[in-house]
C-alpha cells in the first residue's frame, strides 16, 4: 500500500511516501525548488518521492493532507471578525490566498497528480504527534507538541500507545509559545518563521534582564503548565506584524532593523525570552508527567527545534526517556499524516523506524537517475578518486581545509547529518569566523555544531537520557573540551552535538574515525551544505554551485569523487552559474 503525505501552504512544504508502513522517501519542496521555506504545493517533492520509491502517481492508494483546511479557515475568519476594523489588512492578505488555492486542495491534488484515489485530511497537531510517536522506538509514550499554530491548537499534550494516538489537552490560538518566540524574533530584527534559531543562538551572549517584564506583562503561566498571552502587546491577530507599539514601549527600545548592528540590549532580550520559554515548557512537561504513569516522552512541533530548550528538558529528567523528532516543524507533518493514514485509518501495525529513515531525500545512487560519474562527465567536471579517501580527506581537514561533503541520500529535516554537510577542523578556533565570513556568509555570532564519534561523546560532553544523533539537543561540554575543539563550543559552554555511529552513517563514521586517528580529536565541525538564504544542497549541480562560488576547498561526492579548487574549473563555471539568495 502506497500512502503519500503532504504538508503545504504555511511554510516548508513537503511530501513523504509510506510504502507498506515503511517510510521510503520524504523531502522538502525548498530543496528542489531552491526557494528557502518554499510553501507552495510540493509538486517537485512529490515527484521526487515517487521517483525514489519507484512508483507512479496512479499507484498511490491514498493521499493525506496534514491539516484540516476548513477548520483553519474558520479560525482565521474568527480572528479577523474579532479584530475588525484593525484586521482588514489581515483579511485582504489571507482570504484571497484561501479563495484562490488553499480551499481547493482536493482539486489540486487530483489535477496535478491525475489522482483518482482516496484523499484524507488529518488534524495539524495530530500530524505532528504522529510523526514523533510513530518514528520513536517507544510503544507507549506521552506526546507533547509545541507549535506556532495549526487549526486552533498551538500546544497539545497527548499519548501514544501501540498503534493508537490521542490528544488529551490543548491550548488554543492566539496563546502560543511559538508565536511568542516569533514576536521576539521580529523585535530583535530577524525574520519570522526563519530567524527563530538565530534568536536562540544569540541568547547565550546576553543576560536575562527582561525576564520579569515578560512575566509581568506578556505571559501568564498557570500552575498546570498552561499559559496565556496578554494580547494587548501583540498584533498578529489583527495586523501583519507580530508586535505592536505597546510591546515596543514596554522594552523602551525600537525594533531592531534587519541586518543592523547587534548590541547587548537585544542579546539581553534574546536571553530573557529564551529563559522564559524554557521555564514555561518545563512546567508544561511536569504537568504532562503528572497526567499518566508513562515514563517516555516524545516531542514535535516547530518550537522543539530549540535545542537549548531540549537540553533543559532532558537535564530536568522529568521523564525517563526522551525522543525529539528530527523534523519537528510543518515539513515533518507530511510524515506524520502518512503514518496517521496507515495506523489510524487503515488500522495497520507498526514497523520499526530507524535513523536510516532520516536520510530520505534525493538519492545519488537511484538507478532511475543519472549516476554521479555520468553527471560529472556531462558537466565536464574534473575529479580524482583517491585510493583511501577517508584518510586523505581527514588529512586535508586537519591541515585547515574546508570540505563540502555530499554523500548518498539527502537528510529530511533542517539538519545536515553528514550527507549534505560542510566539514572543517574544530580544533582551530579561527574556523568559526572563517566559516561564518567566507563560506556561509552569515552573522558573526552564529555558532557551529560538532559531529562526534558516538563512543567518544561522553568523554567530552555531559549526556542524558536521549539520543544525540540528530542535532536536536545541545549538551554541556565537560571541562577542557573547549580547549580541544574551541570552534564548536558556544558562548554558554554547550554544543549542539551529533553523535555518529557506524550504523547510523557508515561513511561519515569512517571519516570521523580517520580524523580521530590522525589528530586525537573525535569530532568535526558539521554545518549544513549551503550559504545564507540557500536551502541545503540537494543535487550534484547544487553542490557544485555552492562549492564553486564559496571558499570551500574540496568537494567530495559519494565518498569516491574529489574535486579540488586547485583543478581547472573554468569549463564547469561556464555551465553552472552563481545564484543570488535572499537573506534569511
Amino acid at each position: 500500500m502506497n500512502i503519500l503525505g503532504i504538508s503545504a501552504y504555511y511554510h516548508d512544504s513537503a511530501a513523504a511516501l509510506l510504502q507498506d508502513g515503511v517510510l521510503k522517501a520524504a523531502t522538502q519542496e525548498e530543496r528542489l525548488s531552491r526557494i528557502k521555506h518554499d510553501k507552495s504545493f510540493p509538486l517537485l517533492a512529490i515527484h521526487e518521492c515517487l521517483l525514489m520509491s519507484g512508483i507512479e502517481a496512479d499507484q498511490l492508494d491514498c493521499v493525506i493532507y496534514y491539516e484540516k483546511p476548513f477548520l483553519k479557515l474558520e479560525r482565521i475568519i474568527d480572528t479577523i471578525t474579532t479584530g475588525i476594523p484593525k484586521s482588514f489588512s489581515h483579511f485582504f492578505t489571507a482570504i484571497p490566498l484561501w479563495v484562490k488555492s488553499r480551499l481547493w486542495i482536493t482539486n489540486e491534488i487530483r489535477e496535478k497528480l491525475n489522482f483518482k484515489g482516496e484523499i484524507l485530511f488529518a488534524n495539524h497537531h495530530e500530524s505532528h504527534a504522529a510523526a514523533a510517536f510513530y518514528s520513536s522506538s517507544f510503544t507507549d509514550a506521552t506526546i507533547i507538541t509545541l507549535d506556532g499554530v495549526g487549526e486552533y491548537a498551538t500546544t497539545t499534550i497527548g499519548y501514544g500507545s501501540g498503534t493508537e494516538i490521542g490528544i488529551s489537552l490543548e491550548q488554543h490560538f492566539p496563546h502560543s509559545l511559538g508565536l511568542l518566540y516569533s514576536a521576539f524574533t521580529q523585535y530583535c530584527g530577524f525574520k519570522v518563521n526563519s530567524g527563530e534559531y538565530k534568536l536562540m543562538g544569540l541568547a547565550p551572549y546576553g543576560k536575562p534582564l527582561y525576564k520579569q517584564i515578560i512575566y509581568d506583562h506578556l505571559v501568564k503561566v498557570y500552575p498546570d503548565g498552561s499559559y496565556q498571552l496578554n494580547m494587548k502587546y501583540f498584533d498578529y491577530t489583527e495586523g501583519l506584524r507580530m508586535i505592536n507599539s505597546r510591546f515596543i514601549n514596554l522594552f523602551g527600545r525600537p525594533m531592531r532593523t534587519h541586518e543592523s548592528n547587534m548590541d547587548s540590549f537585544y542579546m539581553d532580550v534574546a536571553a530573557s525570552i529564551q529563559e522564559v520559554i524554557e521555564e514555561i515548557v518545563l512546567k508544561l512537561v511536569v504537568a504532562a508527567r503528572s497526567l499518566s504513569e508513562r515514563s517516555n516522552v516524545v516531542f514535535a512541533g516547530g518550537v522543539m527545534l530549540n535545542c537549548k530548550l531540549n537540553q533543559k528538558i532532558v537535564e530536568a529528567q522529568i521523564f525517563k526517556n526522551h525522543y525529539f523528532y528530527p523534523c519537528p516543524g510543518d515539513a515533518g507533518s507530511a510524515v506524520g499524516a502518512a503514518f496517521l493514514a496507515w495506523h489510524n485509518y487503515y488500522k495497520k501495525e507498526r514497523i520499526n523506524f530507524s535513523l536510516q529513515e532520516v536520510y530520505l531525500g534525493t538519492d545519488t545512487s537511484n538507478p532511475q537517475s543519472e549516476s554521479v560519474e555520468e553527471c560529472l562527465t556531462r558537466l565536464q567536471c574534473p575529479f580524482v578518486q583517491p585510493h583511501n579517501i577517508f584518510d586523505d580527506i581527514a588529512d586535508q581537514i586537519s591541515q585547515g581545509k574546508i570540505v563540502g561533503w555530499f554523500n548518498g541520500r539527502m537528510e529530511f529535516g533542517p539538519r545536515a547529518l553528514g550527507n549534505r554537510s560542510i566539514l572543517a577542523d574544530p580544533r582551530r578556533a579561527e574556523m568559526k569566523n572563517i566559516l561564518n565570513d567566507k563560506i556561509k556568509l552569515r552573522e558573526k555570532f552564529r555558532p557551529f555544531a560538532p559531529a562526534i564519534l558516538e563512543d567518544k561523546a561522553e568523554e567530552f560532553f555531559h549526556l542524558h537520557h536521549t539520543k544525540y544523533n540528530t542535532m536536536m539537543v545541545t549538551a554541556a561540554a565537560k571541562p577542557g573540551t573547549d580547549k580541544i575543539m574551541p570552534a564548536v563550543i558556544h558562548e554558554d559552554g554547550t554544543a549542539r552535538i551529533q553523535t555518529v555511529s557506524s550504523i547510523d552513517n557508515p561513511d561519515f563514521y569512517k571519516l570521523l574515525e580517520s580524523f580521530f586517528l590522525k589528530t586525537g580529536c573525535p569530532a568535526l565541525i558539521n554545518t549544513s551544505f549551503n550559504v545564507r538564504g540557500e536551502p541545503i544542497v540537494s543535487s550534484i549541480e547544487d553542490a557544485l554551485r555552492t562549492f564553486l562560488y564559496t571558499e570551500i576547498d574540496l568537494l567530495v561526492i559519494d565518498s569516491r569523487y574529489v574535486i579540488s579548487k586547485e583543478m581547472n574549473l573554468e569549463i564547469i563555471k561556464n555551465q553552472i552559474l552563481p545564484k543570488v539568495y535572499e537573506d534569511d
Partner: protein
Amino acid sequence: MTDLLRNVQDRKICRKDRIQFAAVLLVFAGLFFYMKYVRYDVPVEDFIWEIAGVLVLLSTIVLFKSLGNSIIRVWLLISAIIGKIIFSALLFIVYFLFLVPLFGAIKLFTKRSPEPTTNWSKNTASINDYKKMG
C-alpha cells in the same frame, strides 16, 4: 417643528409613557442578553452587571419625577419626529455599541469573574474523521 416641541412640552407625562420607556429599556436588555448569551454565546467579558447597572441607573432617573420627565420628553420628542420604532432602534445601537463598551472599559458594573486557574482545553478534534476537510 415648533408646534411639535410645544405639544411635547405642554403635555402631561402619564404612567403609560413611563411604562413604555421602561419597557423599551427592558427590551434592549433582553435582546442584548439573548444575542450575547443564547444566540452567539460570545466567550468574552461578562456584561450582565453592566446591563443591570445601566437599567438601574436609567430607571432611577425615570423615578425622579422632574429629571425623569425631561428624559421622557426628549424621548417623546425625537420619537415624534422620526417614529418610536426607529428611535428605539437607534437608542439600541447607541446603548449597546457605545454605553455598554464604555462601562466595560471603565470596569463599571462589570462582574468580577473568578481568576481562571488554567488555559487548557479538552481536545475537540475527532481523530477518525479523516474524510472531512474541517
